[in-house]
């Protein structure tokens, strides 16, 4: 019998790749997102997670972006504050000192990290239901809020954000993804205005609510920005319900393009024209819809060169009843949706998926996928839904022959997962994950990939000179006898999350690179010969 419990049960005979150690790594650290009844859409998306080295000790730290409740909003109280936890380098964290304390905003959603004032330290942007906020890093000692003068206009409901250098001036710019205009006073209640799903009364939206345009901000290099959304033609004819963002150079022309996932509407691919403007080419390139031309309810984005053709591929997570989409680069500049051909479609249909990452989790030299799952409707546990509220997270392991096999991501029980971010938290060379539930204990997934003879790796960090400090937007190519891998430096984690600015290569049996080629955002190419692996390599941009 096709029972949801069976459909959503763990798959795969072997021990899961990841071990969930959240209770030990971040004891008592929980997030909030409204009431457990989930009567309003504002209570659905959960918070955000930002990974990066804020105190400059070489270990990955984590910012947990927390939400609020409608009761707090009604009383005029601020939301639960974002919190920084400093990494110990073993996958566990300790609360940062008072200098790092951040006041609560209205209702935190996601975040992005980057050096926006060019001082070499990682700064922070928090997206909110309400005004988005900017915090400068004071030399690794603490945060200083500069929201009031930062120039981030808009106060609707922002979800994801990403740093990029779209005009290649060496100063970080910012894209902010907006969802919809939400007002609890006028928002319809479950069951009103046809807010039903599979015969059950559920929260309303996003259909019937008003979408809000995304925004593009040009950085001045001092922590302030100016909105250039219209000037850059970064505006579609109609606003969409934006949720996820990915930066990538999809056409490999040296400048950064932007991909945005939208809920129940076509996704957008913004092609950088190289003159400070963008053109929306989602339909033309085949990444706006599923293969049938259906607009999906899209959330997270994974990005990487899965097929090794030198161009990035895009994996997009979707609502239950829809398959996730895998847009694989094809001839010309187009993509083909290949979730079916790669075995990704079927296992995704009963699940509602969020944070996802297309990286090499098992260090065998090809890209795998992590997918966080959890429904938005608690009513998913009622009869006849073919799904459930809590769901198991998934690891799709690349078989190296064009197909993925599905496994349980970890030993953790099913949860109502949302955003996630990757980093090598324990310094062992493989990529670990931090994942949020819609509310509750923050989870940390330690990767148990076997390193060694057939599982080599290399992490590459960049230090820009004419380019931005972390080389965001740089292309990094690892070459060895008989093969190569390409990746980009980007910090967006796809959905309400951010990852460290580094390139990670799983190399399998390759124990030495013939060369590493960096194409900096400044346009300069740099070649490093004969590179040893199984280490963190820091590459500095040469002087002109």
């Amino acid at each position, binding site marked *: 019998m096709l029972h949801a419990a069976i*459909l959503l049960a763990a798959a795969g005979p072997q021990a899961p790749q990841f071990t969930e150690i959240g209770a030990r790594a971040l004891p008592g650290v929980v997030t909030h997102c409204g009431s457990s009844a989930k009567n309003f859409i504002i209570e659905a998306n959960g918070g955000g997670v930002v990974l990066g080295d804020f105190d400059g000790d070489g270990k990955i730290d984590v910012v947990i972006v927390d939400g609020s409740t409608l009761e707090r909003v009604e009383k005029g109280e601020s939301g639960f504050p974002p919190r920084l936890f400093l990494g110990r380098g073993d996958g566990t964290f300790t609360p940062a000192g008072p200098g790092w304390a951040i006041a609560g905003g209205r209702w935190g959603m996601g975040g992005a990290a980057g050096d926006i004032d060019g001082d070499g330290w990682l700064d922070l942007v928090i997206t909110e239901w309400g005004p988005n906020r900017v915090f400068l890093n004071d030399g690794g000692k603490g945060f200083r809020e500069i929201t009031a003068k930062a120039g981030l206009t808009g106060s609707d409901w922002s979800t994801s954000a990403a740093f990029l250098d779209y005009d290649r001036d060496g100063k970080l710019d910012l894209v902010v993804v907006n969802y919809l205009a939400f007002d609890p006073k006028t928002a319809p209640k479950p069951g009103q205005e046809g807010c039903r799903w599979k*015969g059950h009364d559920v929260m309303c939206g996003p259909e019937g609510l008003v979408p809000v345009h995304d925004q593009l901000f040009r950085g001045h290099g001092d922590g302030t920005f100016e909105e250039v959304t219209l000037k850059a033609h970064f505006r579609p004819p109609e606003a969409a319900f934006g949720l996820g963002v990915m930066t990538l150079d999809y056409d490999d022309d040296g400048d950064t393009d932007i991909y945005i996932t939208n809920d129940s509407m076509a996704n957008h691919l913004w092609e950088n024209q190289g003159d400070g403007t963008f053109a929306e080419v989602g339909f033309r390139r085949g990444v706006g819809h599923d293969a049938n031309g259906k607009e999906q309810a899209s959330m997270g984005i994974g990005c990487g060169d899965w097929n090794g053709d030198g161009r990035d591929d895009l994996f997009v997570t979707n609502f239950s009843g829809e398959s996730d989409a895998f847009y694989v680069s094809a001839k010309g500049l187009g993509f083909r949706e290949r979730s079916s*051909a790669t075995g990704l479609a079927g296992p995704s249909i*009963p699940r509602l998926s969020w944070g996802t990452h297309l990286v090499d989790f098992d260090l065998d030299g090809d890209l795998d996928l992590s997918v966080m799952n959890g429904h938005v409707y608690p009513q998913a546990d009622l*009869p006849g839904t073919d799904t459930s509220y809590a769901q198991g997270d998934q690891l799709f392991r690349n078989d190296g022959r064009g197909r993925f096999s599905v496994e349980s991501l970890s030993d953790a029980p099913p949860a109502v997962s949302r955003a996630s971010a990757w980093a090598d938290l324990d310094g062992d060379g493989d990529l670990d994950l931090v994942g949020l539930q819609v509310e509750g204990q923050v989870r940390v997934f330690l990767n148990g990939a076997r390193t060694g003879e057939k599982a080599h790796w290399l992490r590459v960090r960049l230090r820009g000179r004419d380019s931005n400090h972390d080389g965001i937007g740089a292309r990094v190519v690892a070459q060895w006898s008989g093969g190569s891998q390409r990746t980009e430096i980007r910090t967006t984690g796809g959905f309400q999350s951010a990852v460290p600015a580094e390139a990670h290569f799983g190399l399998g049996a390759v124990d030495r690179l013939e060369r590493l080629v960096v194409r900096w955002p400044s346009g300069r190419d740099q070649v490093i010969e004969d590179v040893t692996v199984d280490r963190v390599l820091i590459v500095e941009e040469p002087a002109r």
Partner: protein
Amino acid sequence: MRKVFFMLALIARIGPVQEAPRDAPSVPVDGLHDHQKMTALRRDPRSLPRSAEGRWKNFERTTTAAEPPPEGMREAAIAIRERDLPRALVLLYGVLDSEPDYPPGLYEMGVVYFRLQRYGDAAAALERFLAVAPARVGETRVLGHSYYSVGDYTRAKAHYERVLAAAPREVEALRGLALCEMHLGEAQKALDFLGRVLELEPRHTDSWAWKAQLLFDLDRSQEALVAAERARDLDPWQPRPWFLLGRILLDLGREKDGLAAQVRYRNLAAAAQDVVSIESRLEYLPHEMPLLTRLVELHRSTGNVPAARKALVRLVRERPTDVDLRILALDVLEGMGDAEGARVAAQALQQRCTEEWKAWQRLERYYARTGEKLQRVEAGERFRRLKPD
């Protein structure tokens, strides 16, 4: 949308149970309270009572006209035909509680659950149907569709193969098998099966569209174009063929044609999205007048005459003598240039609303337009006679 296409195609072909005659007594709409429907919707078909071992062993022989179906079965069939699925479910649970495992009841329950997009429940009912009536496997493509709809392509494939072993010309099972092969990474096999579908049913729009998509994915754009054009010609109101055409034409460098197809797709898709949303709500709330009216308006906006006709039938069935609805039907069909449909609507208005002055006022205008002088004069006289001062 894929599943909706799939479902609509299926619905047109469902029905091993004899339909009740049109004039059979039916349970009035008000005869069932909302809580009864809610209770039925919250039930799990796995909890139905089981029949005694061998109770339906001779099912094929016993289902003759001499043996009337259990109470409620005819009414359930009518409810299904009239698209009142919650009511059908109440009645079917009644049938199966009193006559456990009654095979036609299990079958119809599976179909109803499938239409409600409750695929796990559909599979549960149909698996039991198959257990008590294994000889009827050839009629159980919906079980394959149910497995398919939850992404279990391996199981769906195996079931379609069973169906086809018993009923080799079962087109929808063949199409389902093709799609399973596609999902299992066997594009060429999928194309072969779609080819067989199109041999059996050359006007199978959906299969032309799938063929176009598969060929496009294989970078065989010229062949894909032919298939997409065929799909578009067969059903010009479906957005999917236009979507494929737009993608294929742009891929072939036919910029102007590709962009035009893209615009057509966007217009149709916007309406189709609304139609899907309304249809899915109507499955649970089949008598909601605002939804039924909106459906008519949507089909009118895209110029889809066949769909508008069907939507109008559903609308006026709710209030057959409502003069405003009858006038709306005439307005819509006349406005869409559907002379044949407008004539039927005018006749119905005349017959069903004989004592309504508004009906004759509208008919006077209608006959003026069609140039039927006598009818026009008569309608005018009736209008002026009935109209209150």
